[in-house]
């Protein structure tokens, strides 16, 4: 028996030894490399060796070597198929109740969430969302909205001035004027945004807060439409069962004007010392009314042909009421322990 044939036998043993231990596919590949590696593979070396043999030995040895090659190639295929069915040992947790893998997420600001909830309701009714500047002129903030100069009606809108002409808007209503100036009816918009008042801080007042304004202008718009739409809005926000009432009020830019109260969701009128409603059982939530004819005239819309309704609501105060937050300042302190509570909704 030639030296080469001896080696073949030796290698067959070696192959069997290795193959009997194989479990994973990776090990099959290692074994293949051991025998067929391009430079140092055992069989590769044997074929190199074959070339050096004298011609009379070459033929028989060559046949034996080729047979051996085919043999282990076939076995490798089998091994590979088998290895596939052998699964790696999986780690099994001893306690499945341990916490899961949770990347840290950021929380939206509650006022953003509340504003979004309001926008969604109106957008579902065909309103579009508009915005406008926070630095305004006296004309847009007051005069065009039918506040005469030096009228006490301005007292409820304490103003932060930049100079004699410019001020920080005290309500989102100037955007009504800006939209009506550039667009012909029908108009169906809401305007959320920041507003500013010269007010000293207390539990329900701050010099800056958020408002949302709504405006509808078209032929044949009535007070009944105002009622129906705002009722739907409030029910969509606070639930079907919430009670509400409309009472007469005064705003220079609407006539007739109304305020809307909703039932106190804290005490339902049962607690005379209720911190939220003061025992009245009602909480004022928004101001509204039919667009004043003078406002229409200021933007060149004919009040004989068109009518409209508008409303304004304080987002902060409504959110305070809905979430029972006692102080408005929480919204602007940005304490993460407060902010990160509002991830639902």
């Amino acid at each position, binding site marked *: 028996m030639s030296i080469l044939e001896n080696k073949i036998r030796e290698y067959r043993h070696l192959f069997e030894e290795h193959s009997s231990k194989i479990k994973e596919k990776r090990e099959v590949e290692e074994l293949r490399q051991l025998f067929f590696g391009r430079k140092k593979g055992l069989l590769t070396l044997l074929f190199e060796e074959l070339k050096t043999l004298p011609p009379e030995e070459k033929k028989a040895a060559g046949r034996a070597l080729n047979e051996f090659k085919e043999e282990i190639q076939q076995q490798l295929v089998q091994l590979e198929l088998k290895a596939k069915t052998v699964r790696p040992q999986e780690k099994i947790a001893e306690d499945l109740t341990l916490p899961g*893998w949770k990347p840290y997420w*950021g929380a939206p600001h509650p006022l*953003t969430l509340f504003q979004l909830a309001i926008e969604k309701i109106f957008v579902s009714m065909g309103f579009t969302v508009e915005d406008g500047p926070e*630095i305004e002129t006296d004309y847009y903030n007051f005069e065009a909205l039918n506040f005469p100069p030096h009228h*006490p009606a301005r007292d409820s809108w304490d103003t932060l001035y930049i100079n004699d002409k410019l001020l920080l808007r005290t309500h989102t209503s100037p955007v009504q004027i800006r939209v009506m100036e550039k667009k012909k009816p029908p108009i*169906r918009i809401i305007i959320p945004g920041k507003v500013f008042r010269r007010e000293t801080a207390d539990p329900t007042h701050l010099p800056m807060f958020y408002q949302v304004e709504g405006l509808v202008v078209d032929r044949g718009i009535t007070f009944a439409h105002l009622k129906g739409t705002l009722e739907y809005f409030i029910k969509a926000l606070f639930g079907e069962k919430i009670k509400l009432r409309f*009472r007469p009020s005064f705003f220079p830019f609407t006539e*007739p004007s109304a305020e809307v109260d909703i039932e106190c969701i804290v005490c339902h009128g049962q607690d005379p010392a209720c911190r939220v409603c003061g025992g009245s059982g009602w909480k004022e939530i928004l101001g509204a009314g*039919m667009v*004043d004819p003078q406002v229409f005239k200021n933007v060149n819309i004919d009040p004989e042909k068109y009518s409209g309704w508008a409303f304004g609501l304080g987002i902060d105060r409504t959110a305070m009421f809905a979430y029972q937050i006692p102080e408005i300042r929480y919204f602007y302190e940005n304490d993460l322990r407060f902010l990160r509570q509002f991830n639902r909704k």
Partner: protein
Amino acid sequence: MKISYDWLKEFIDLTITPRQLAEYLNQIGLMVESVEEIEGDTIYDIETYANRPDTLGHLGVAREIAALLGIPLKIQNWPLTEIDQPTSDFIDIQVMDSHLCPRYCGLVVKGVKVGPSPDWLKKRIEAVGLRSINNVVDISNYVCFALGQPIHTFDLNKIRGSRIIVRKAFKDETIRTLEGSLIKLESEMLVIADESRPVAIAGIIGGEDSGITEETRDIFIESANFDPVSIRLTAKKLGLSTEASYRFERNVDINSAPQAAIMAASLLNRFGGRAARGLLDIYPNQKKSRTVTLRLQRIAELLGVEIPADFVVRTLNGLGLKLKEQKENVWIAEIPSFRVDLEREADLIEEVARFYGYDRIPSEVTPVKHFELPSDFKKEKIWSLKEVLFHHGFNEVINFSFADPEKESLWQTGHQAIHLQNPISSRASILRTSLLPGLVENTVWNFNREAEGVHIFETGKIYFWDEEESPREILNLGILTSGIWPSPAWNEPGKETDFFILKGVVEDLIIYLGLDSLSFEPGDHPFFEPGQALKILLKNDLIGYLGRLKSDIIGAYELEKPAFGAEIYLEELLEKQPKPFVFKPIPKFPRVSRDLSFLVEEGLSYQELWKQLQKLNVPNLESFVVYDRFKGESLPPGKISFSVRFFFRHQSRTLQTEEVDQLMQDIISQLKTFVKIQLR
């Protein structure tokens, strides 16, 4: 405004309970804010409106209730005990400016015994929240709260020269008021003067040395009407607000002046006073009553409900309007002088609606004829960006738009700040010119309150004067990260946040918007430590900065931990339009990858390498990733190693190994012409 149930009974026969009354007041818009019971009387604090001066007296409120209940107002009788000497013997009245003082009534009452008020008067005065002083002062308050007409009483004998002159103040004139303060008057202010000096600031407050004292015997009653704007300007300028100025600013009924003077004189009769004969009434330009046309049809059009004509007529008549039917269901309404608010048809429709009851108006859906698309999708885009930030672990905050000029100056934002004329405090006297100072304050606040890490953002406006001295407000996005970044695993500690946590979210924001020309450039900026900041660029447009915040600046806020911040010009970013999106087909043939590691000069940045790699022009090269950057002792000095994995794919067949080998050769030779590389 406080309203007494008992007092209302002087004007109407009330058969309803105090509780019912509160409900009625609410229904007609005189909102009851609180109810109090005092000595058997019920006191309502009602909300009144700037356009309704008539409700600033019990008479006006009684009139509303009477109209609602359909009952008449009681006729009040104020008899006078007179002496046989005309008023003009005691006083001469001269009105110099009939625009600022359209009506002036005066009456003299002699021989009054000044003293404490009787119980009935005290009770009325205290019911409206005032303190009883003496019978004369209390009577003027009583008249004011009964009729809504402020009056003033002078000690007749202290009016020098027996003359009352209504005129504008002289320059540098002064007056010591009843409250004891010395006030310097200005020339546009209207005063009531005697021969030599002002004795009252018209419609606002009386002077001390012409006021009623215990020695006063003879009284001059002033019951006048003043221009609302003039009163308001003077009161504001002097920082005074009195029961009188509050009413005059709101435009008092011009016809209540005589009645109020007589009522006061009649009441003074009860304390020994006897009136001089004849009321002096200076009213040169008599105001005509206004008329307004009202159409029944229009009521239905505006309210959305048909209200019967007889209800309309009854209600408006009850409120003192005189209706004349012009044609069927169209009326000319004559407006009584006390309703200064009723000027247009819409005002009358509101009156009808108020008394009809808002709750009886039906609720209907606002009709919609067409839906409009939003003019842009800015709001939607902002919300998507916020979602990216939430997913990356950033919490949203909202800060005030105000800033402290001293602290803001540390930041050198390069913007000319807008100052407020009347700020609430000097520490909030400008509008912010950057979002980062607010975020730093939030960070400190939270570190002081148990937070281990603060990762926050804000979208909001910054404000400044532009080059043309016009105010600008632009929407920015500020992001800040500092402290510990929490670990997703419950049993592993968090790690210190770093620059790349911030940069990652910035990159993702741009990707999310579908914009693909993002790049960064080293750029020093006053907010950041030198060499630790990048400019954020889209093509060639600067859209913001990010970097490590300067420890000097944040140290001034007592933030000691490293903090990384970014400020992005959101408005500009949102204006960039992404290429329209079209899906890419899923490939049918497999891709082949090859890795290449090479050495480059140490100064070559990742971004520069990336730019060079993008220049490669090799067929079937689908994409590449740089997956390693290495610098170490095993490398020659001054060199770093990059590793890049290239992906190849043919659209219509499987690539052969030899082909890919050739493509890699192409890559290497092309790359060598762009950058000095040395294969490892």
